[in-house]
């Protein structure tokens, strides 16, 4: 038995490191969430250092729950995550089925498709919000003004001109505005993560039972019913994994939101925590605990699912 002891001990450094990494900051967050702790307060200087005598009970939690920005941040987190999930899964299935069969240049198309996934989030956001979506200087602005100019020149046509003058001019959309910044974030993250969905779903499609498929074809099943009754059930688990992993990544989305609008109009939970942390640490910590709870709800499902397939 003793020659098994050392090998088992080899996992302790990893376990200890992660344990400290998880427990120490989380413990502090929990502590801060129950005390009054602000970084700048001239009238109550005793609040500016963490101390147990500043105990506030659930006061920070109440404050956070009652603040309008918290509700908005939850709504935004969910809106952003759900929209991205919906789009990436639908696009992912469609593209995976499309490129799963051999065709000339399949390898190159795969490489082109996967590339966005490796772009660093900061560059992704800077590229999209400036060079593509900017209402004046980006491709969007250039395209809209091009269409408008064409429209104006069409109006001066002899006969059809009257018809074109009924058309309205197009207005470019500013994606840094309150109402639209979430859309920009959804667009850029969908661009980045659809390749991930494609890759996972394609890997799974390759292990699909081909004999079953051929039997279905011989029985005269249509392409749609093959997809609906054979492929889609086969993709069930990979889709669930794509959903869960993305949910965890996107619940903590930060760089894109910061770059697009500095949170204007679409703060999610991590962003709100960052804002609170500029002064009100108690509130930031309470919000953090809510974020942990939200992430845990998602994580439990994922861990259950992976746990089943782990030790086989």
């Amino acid at each position: 038995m003793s020659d098994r002891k050392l090998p088992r001990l080899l996992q302790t450094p990893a376990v200890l490191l992660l344990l400290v990494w998880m427990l120490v900051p989380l413990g502090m967050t929990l502590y801060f969430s129950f005390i009054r702790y602000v970084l700048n307060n001239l009238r109550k200087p005793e609040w500016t250092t963490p101390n147990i005598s500043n105990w506030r009970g659930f006061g920070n939690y109440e404050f956070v729950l009652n603040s309008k920005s918290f509700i908005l941040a939850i709504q935004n987190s969910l809106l952003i995550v759900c929209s991205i999930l919906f789009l990436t899964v639908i696009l992912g299935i469609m593209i995976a089925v499309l490129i799963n069969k051999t065709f000339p240049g399949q390898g190159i198309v795969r490489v082109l498709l996967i590339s966005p996934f490796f772009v660093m989030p900061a560059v992704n956001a800077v590229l999209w919000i400036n060079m593509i979506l900017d209402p004046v200087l980006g491709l969007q602005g250039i395209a809209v003004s091009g269409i408008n100019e064409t429209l104006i020149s069409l109006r001066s046509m002899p006969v059809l001109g009257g018809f074109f003058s009924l058309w309205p001019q197009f207005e470019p959309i500013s994606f840094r505005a309150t109402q639209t910044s979430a859309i920009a974030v959804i667009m850029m993250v969908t661009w980045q993560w659809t390749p991930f969905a494609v890759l996972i779903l394609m890997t799974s499609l390759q292990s699909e039972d081909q004999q079953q498929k051929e039997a279905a074809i011989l029985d005269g099943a249509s392409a749609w019913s093959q997809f609906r009754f054979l492929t889609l059930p086969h993709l069930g688990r990979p889709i669930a994994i794509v959903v869960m992993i993305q949910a965890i990544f996107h619940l903590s989305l930060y760089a894109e939101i910061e770059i697009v609008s500095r949170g204007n109009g679409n703060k999610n939970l991590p962003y709100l925590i960052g804002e609170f942390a500029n002064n009100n640490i108690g509130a930031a910590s309470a919000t953090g605990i809510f974020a942990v709870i939200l992430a845990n709800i998602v994580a439990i499902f994922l861990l259950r699912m992976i746990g089943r397939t782990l030790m086989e």
Partner: protein
Amino acid sequence: MAIVAQSSKFSTFGRPVLAWAVGLLFFFPIFWLFLTSFKTDADAVKPEYLLFFTPTLENYLNMTQNYDYWRFATNSVVTSVFATVFTLVVGIPAAYAMAFNPSRGTKDILMWMLSTKMLPAAAVLYPMTFLTKGLGLFDTHFLIILVLSLINLPIVVWMLFTYFKEIPKDIIEAGKMDGVNTWGEIKEILIPLAWGGIASTALLCFIFCWNEAYWTVRLTTTDAATLSKLIEGNRAPEGLFFGRLSAVSTAAIGPIVVLGWFCQKQLVQGLTFGAVK
């Protein structure tokens, strides 16, 4: 026969065309960034130079002057390389222990490791700032290396575990018979056998370190700031500097996108924790 029956007009003509269109569409933003990086700042915002312009290397040549690119790039390389090495040094023995000497608790330990990955970083933002400033670690390479290692350790252990599981136990046992000790087993038998798996795990870990954009932004100011911080700091160029911004962005993502092409397959294994094969 079935294959013949299947090959409709769509398969022979429509599928390749559509697939290529989708591939090019997804690649287009990267291509656009690359193209813009060869335009002067003035040309980059003029519609008449959209596709046809006189290419210039000036943006790349002035990258040091405009953005201090190399300082940030060096920080990115140093932190990512050391974090990857450190993660492997801690991760290989752990994965070895779990794959070849599993106990009843192994499964739970693996699950728990994964669950630390799901802890939202923002929740511990202030304690981390507070602690690292208190310990004098804020904005140091050491801190960034440590944090990058810790956030990637669960994925690395998982990937290595799934690779090591494929190695027949007999080979390791045979080593034991020959009187090789544990270190010898890892060094002489395991690492050479699992070399491919270890390399691709390292590559993926390096990519994640390089692209990390929360801690590297929030826990640095200047000394240990990485490329993520550089790009984030230049988020709104007021439209005047599209050319130079494209060049520095291209330089920030280029190496990683190319590396990424080589480890697409490992990505599936790594990010699904071996649940999709």
